[in-house]
């Protein structure tokens, strides 16, 4: 993975000094609350319900063992011994003290980490596929470009104070796993007819209050122009995006208001001036960055391993885990492994310091000292030998990291919700936990099969509820917490937004409601059909009928 040179290191060190002085001025009351807000947000610091929350950047989800050990130590020293991995592939600390945050950043800088632009109205962390570099269906490994974009976007002077946050995702696979269509800019790397690396650019996607999938603004962009083209897009947005209403300030609103043709015309006009300017990426610079992402020194291994086959045969539990948590790898004899941060009954995405140390050790021992954070809030060991899988599983299981539920109903994507977040309308973690307990029977869970259930505590949609096969949104009605249920959302190439099924439910009703949705699916599904396929085939009406018929009749009964 990318390693800092003196230039990178000096920049994060200078950032720590700058931020330390900003905090000093705030505490000394030289900065008002309002003046400090944009400064602290650009450093990932929120003031939350109980304490500040600090969001630490994990660029495109890549971490080294050393970095994860440091994060674990920081969580122990400055927090309550755990952290929360977010859908932006970042790590959030829920209980740091404001006055400690400069020291936390100084410690992060020692392992080439920071919290720069993890919040605020600026270009945020660049995200990508968690199987980048190892996926068999990968055409281009976009990590070097992601790093080039990261550096370019860091303290970009023209785009330091945009109308609203700005998220960029990159992907280089046939099967999109980076959800590029729900980003402000999504870039899909591919090989064009001349076998050159090119980019298909989407613009104006996003979830939140107004969920919209992105629109293709350019089918073919030569990779050298990635930065200048982004400059053109973001300049049009910076000058013309709405600043009078935070809910209408994302680029998606501007694109819809102007129409893609007019927006695209303005971008092209801007780009004429910017194209070939010095920010145009050179072969040499890409090569310099790309050498950090060269393939590991893989062993030459056969496609099968007898010890692995024997372990599968003798342990049903191991077998079940490999079905969910082990993923194909482009190198023979290797696999990628997902360590589940979704044990039933715990907050999705949370990891204790002890678990972080264990994962860091596993990565060091079995996966070239590196790991990834997925936007589904799990941790990935990307390069494990087939013959090591059993050992990895045993250790992961001992520390609660091997729940065989990856891609299943209880692998819930969930924001921190009303327990922590001051934006939330409703709690989300207890709903996730209640649903996980409702479906705690593993055989039943596996029978239901692949299902993505996403929960957000408010319409800001950190839990990506719009693209969940089942999406749950916390809403506030007269001061109490209710949950709106939608079905039919999906991420990936054939992304779709979910449809709300009807009136909202109380927290207590929620496990039962999900149960009802599953009942309809189990009754209606044809062979090999996943929940989402059934919803797409038969529509939401049968689901709606079953869910509400039962609750209505119960209500009637209560009135008798």
């Amino acid at each position: 993975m990318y390693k800092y040179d003196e230039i990178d290191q000096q920049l994060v060190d200078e950032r720590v000094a700058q931020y330390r002085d900003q905090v000093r001025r705030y505490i000394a009351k030289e900065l008002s609350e309002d003046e400090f807000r944009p400064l602290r947000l650009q450093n990932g610091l929120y003031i939350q319900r109980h304490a500040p929350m600090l969001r630490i950047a994990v660029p495109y989800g890549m971490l080294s063992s050393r970095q994860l050990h440091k994060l674990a130590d920081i969580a122990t020293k400055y927090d309550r011994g755990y952290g929360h991995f977010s859908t932006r592939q970042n790590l959030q600390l829920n209980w740091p003290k404001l006055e400690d945050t400069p020291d936390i950043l100084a410690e992060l800088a020692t392992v080439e980490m920071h919290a720069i632009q993890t919040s605020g109205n600026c270009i945020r962390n660049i995200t990508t596929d968690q199987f980048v570099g190892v996926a068999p269906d990968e055409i281009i490994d976009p990590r070097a470009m992601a790093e080039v974009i990261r550096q370019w976007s860091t303290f970009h002077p023209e785009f330091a104070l945009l109308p609203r946050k700005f998220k960029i995702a990159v992907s280089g696979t046939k099967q999109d796993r980076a959800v590029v269509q729900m980003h402000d800019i999504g870039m899909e790397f591919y090989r064009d007819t001349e076998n050159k690396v090119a980019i298909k650019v989407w613009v104006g996607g996003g979830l939140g209050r107004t969920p919209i999938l992105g629109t293709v603004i350019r089918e073919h962009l030569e990779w050298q122009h990635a930065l200048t083209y982004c400059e053109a897009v973001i300049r049009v947005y910076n000058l013309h995006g709405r600043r009078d209403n935070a809910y209408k300030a994302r680029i998606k609103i501007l694109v819809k208001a102007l129409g893609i043709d007019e927006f695209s015309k303005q971008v092209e006009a801007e780009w004429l001036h910017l194209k070939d300017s010095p920010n145009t990426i050179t072969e040499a610079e890409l090569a310099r960055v790309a050498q950090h992402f060269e393939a590991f020194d893989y062993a030459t291994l056969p496609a099968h391993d007898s010890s692995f086959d024997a372990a599968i045969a003798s342990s049903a539990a191991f077998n079940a885990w490999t079905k969910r948590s082990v993923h194909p790898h482009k190198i023979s004899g290797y696999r990628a492994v997902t360590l589940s941060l979704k044990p039933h009954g715990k907050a999705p995405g949370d990891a204790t310091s002890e678990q972080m140390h264990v994962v860091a050790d596993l990565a060091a021992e079995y996966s070239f000292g590196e790991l990834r954070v997925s936007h589904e809030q799990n941790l990935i060991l990307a390069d494990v030998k087939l013959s090591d899988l059993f050992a990895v599983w045993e250790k992961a299981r001992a520390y609660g990291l091997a729940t065989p539920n990856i891609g299943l109903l209880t692998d819930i994507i969930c924001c921190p919700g009303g327990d922590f977040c001051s934006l939330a309308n409703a709690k989300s973690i207890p709903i996730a936990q209640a649903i996980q307990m409702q479906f705690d029977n593993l055989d039943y869970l596996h029978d239901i099969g692949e299902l993505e259930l996403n929960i957000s505590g408010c319409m800001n949609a950190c839990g990506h509820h719009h693209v969940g096969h089942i999406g749950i949104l916390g809403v506030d009605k007269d001061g109490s917490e209710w949950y709106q249920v939608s079905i039919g959302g999906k991420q990936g190439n054939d992304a779709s937004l979910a449809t709300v099924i009807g009136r909202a439910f109380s927290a207590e009703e929620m496990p039962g409601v999900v149960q009802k949705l599953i009942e309809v699916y189990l009754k209606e599904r044809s062979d090999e059909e996943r929940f989402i396929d059934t919803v797409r085939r038969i529509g939401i009406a049968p689901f709606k009928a079953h869910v509400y018929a039962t609750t209505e009749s119960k209500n009637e009964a209560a009135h008798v």
Partner: protein
Amino acid sequence: MSNLITQNEIVSDDWTLVTLPKVDQEVRKQAGKVVLFKLTGENTISAEQIANTQIPATGKILVPLSVYLARKSELATRIAKQEVGIWLATHEVLESLPNAEPDLNIFPLIAVYVERFADGRIFSIGNLLRTRYGFNHTLRAFGDVLRDQLFFLKRSGFDSYLIRADRSAQEALQSLKDFSQPYQGAVDDKQPVWRRLNRSQNNVA
């Protein structure tokens, strides 16, 4: 004491800011909130305001863009004497200035007014004035200008900053040096760091 920084020094301000006369305006509301930022290109200045703007008879004057566009002919002799600068707010249409005056370097000063710290349009405006419209005299930021914008303003082409009156310009000078080697090319140094320095010698182990 002056709160004006120009070319990395605190200097006295010998320009007189000309402002439009205030008019009673209805506060516009949208979604229950007062509109803090005017919509892009919205014309909020009346012909009457422009006509009633008092322009001092002598000295260096910083004239609102709208007043300049409408009353350019009365200012011709003073422009020749280098006594006229132009100021505009971030929501105004920048292009109207180069459209009316292809050579912006007849002005010794252009100033951009930023109503709120968080309004980053000022950076794009600075960039365009320097790179698109070829302005190479003093470019000033004023309004809600605090030290934490200075590094970005500098990189966007500004070289003069009128720090908000309740803050120290002396302390603000520090922030011009926040970062020694920024990554990307911008107005002040068009080369990104990889063209500025030889990064390849920092070898990967």
